[in-house]
């Protein structure tokens, strides 16, 4: 399944602990008991997942609200 959240530009971000640039990884999103796979930038070593404000206030918020009204 392709990501519902698009491709933010996180190319300048590195994980401070692992000193590795973030890569688009398949991660698991969950809300109100629903779980689904998405692709988001994350640290390939420790798995720190980054959510940009654009995504948090955009498509992620839309999905949250849709699930809330179900």
């Amino acid at each position: 399944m392709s990501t519902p959240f698009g491709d933010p530009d996180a190319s300048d971000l590195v994980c401070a602990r692992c000193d590795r640039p973030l890569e688009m990884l398949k991660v698991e999103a969950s809300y109100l008991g629903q779980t689904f796979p998405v692709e988001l930038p994350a640290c390939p070593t420790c798995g720190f997942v980054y959510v940009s404000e654009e995504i948090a206030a955009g498509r992620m918020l839309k999905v949250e609200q849709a699930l809330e009204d179900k």
Partner: protein
Amino acid sequence: MDGDKIKAWEALCIEEQPPACAAACPLRVDARAMAEKMAAGDFVAAMAVYARAVPFPAILAHICEHPCEAVCRRAEAGGAVRIGALERALVEEAYPSIRRAAQRARKPKTIAVVGAGLAGLTAAFDLVMKGHAVTVFEADAQPLDRLHRDYLPAVLPPSAIAADVGALMKLGVDIRCRQRIDPPSLDALIAGHDAVLMAVGPGPAAAFSGTLLLNAAGRIDVDRQTRATSHPKVFAGGLHDGTEEAWSAIGSAADGRRAAGSIDRFLQGASLTASRGDERAGTCLYVNVESHTAVPPVEAADPAAGYGHAEATAEAARCFPCHCLECVRACPYLAHYNTYPKRAVREIYNNDSIVMGNRKSNRMIDSCTLCGLCTELCPNDLAMGEVCLEARQSMVERGHMPASHHDFALRDMAFSRSDEVAFARHQPGHERSAVLFFPGCQLAASAPGQVAAVYRHLTERIGGGVGFMLDCCAAPAHWSGRTALHGEAVHRIRTVWEEFGRPRLVTACSTCLKLFGEFLPDVPTSSLWTELERIGLPDGAKRPAPKGPLAIHDPCTARHAVDVQAAVRSIATSLGAEVRELGGAEKTTCCGYGGLVSFAHPEVGNAFADRRITESDDDYLAYCAMCRDNFARRGKRALHLMDLIFPDADDPAARPDPGFSGRRDNRLRLRRRLLRELWGESMSDPVPPVTLVIADAVRADIERKLLLVDDIAEVIAEAERTGRKLKDRTTGRLTASGRIGTVTTWVEYEAGAAGFVVHRIYGHRMQVEAKP
């Protein structure tokens, strides 16, 4: 929710009642819709409205007796709208635009109409439009012979008659003139058709006594409601034609329509009487006529020719149009949803009833401020707030309301009730309390210094011990529909009250006062303001009189607290304020905080605040801390009554809104200060985990996004401790996140000389995790 209760609520809203003109029109012409379209210059659309109800527009526009004008509500403000003249202007200009097509009946029937008067031809029109085959038999040489005889051509031009009759024939009605129907031929008509309508005058009726029952007056005996005769296949017009009503053109047409309605029902095998709708008379639509200035009718430049286009447009614009909408005009919530209570109640009920699927109205239900203004304005006292509150309770109970709407407010309430903030003590040196001062969580959050000062004053003036209780009345739980949580909080207050020996409660907050009255009715509670009026203000203090007049804003929760309203005005006046009214306490509006709207739907909350603050240029005087701070947040200069009694700033009206983070700090600080200073308890000041530097714009953004500075500090401290953070290689800025409650908070920051500089914050509720 209870369906019967919903129906009762719906019935209270009369907005869907017809306007007086339509209710009085025998053909139910919607003159309101027609005039609205004409006023907008769209005569073609107006013609469509008129022709939908009227079978013969050209004829009736000239000769209708317009009973609508006799009841038009505009008569009370300059003169009735000249609806008849509007219709004539409409026909002059837009008659050719009429488009009519008969329905295609699945089983067309044949109908004979005896008599080509207005009644007979109206019935013929209605039945042919339904797809039936209609033949009209007329004894005279031409249809509508009476109209030719009774009206001067200047009043009713023969060309108008010809146009309408021609249109009727084009629809397929077969009109046969010089065809006198005698009793044997009536029997033949009955045998050869599915139904027969006798639309004949009084003269010929007697001849048909063999087939049809006659009444005492020698006319065909017809049922008032259905126009049925003694023969099941035969219907008759004529009640208004001598026996019961005087003849009128519009009455004849309505007579024919009523008979045609029965014939159609008869042909379909349907009940002749069930829910006919044409029995309706009168209306209970409320219209606030006083709110309209009087405007006289437009006089046509050439009375004989009638209105020209511009004149008709201007006259049509005199139609109000009639609506109630008293509540909608005053309520930014209903206006935002572009609805009115009758429709809203139904929508709310439907949303509540959905078992599976999308609930589209959740946020709408959570956007009412529960302010009660609609109830004041509604002619039937409909309380939308009650509807919304019940819906919230019902949906919360079944887990159907999104928690996100209110979780910030409930978290704030939990904080106010936590051991970090809440406490209760007898007055120092006392073991009992005659009075228990309950300032309320919002005044404590907005002006902790004034709470301490007024408490000192109360202890000096009231004997028998004045205890102090810092807590929350649990209004957020109540407003959000959390019945159980609210009940638990109320129970705790009751327990403290009993432990303190059942003292009298004195509260500074109108919401606490109202809710205690409702949920702790046996606990004697009074307002700080009536109390201060009784015991007097602290003397000696130098108080500068306020600069300029103050417009007083009553909180919506004090709408009916008449004694409190009076006390506040008298205190303010005694302190030198020139108090001005904003439309009075009873019709006060919500500041935008009520019902938690500012959390569930900030846009609507701001609309309430913004509408209120534009009502006057004077500084506002509030006596609810939330109202004052909300106005300040929206840029209005506003004072709290406390600012007059205990002035602690040069220009208190310019005091900014402390914001949610500031409110928390103020509550914490108040508790520590009082416990330390008055009760001599040792309190250690909390050490913040990190020092933050936050620019004003970022601080406003934090407020807008309902995030807390304390939480941001936690996120940064944790990231610095663990190293779990991201670094931007170009800017050097750091990004960290933490899950606090149901929200993941993200912070973009950098280390600076004075502390961590916060650049950006945001949050989301969804959780994301890399799969192991």
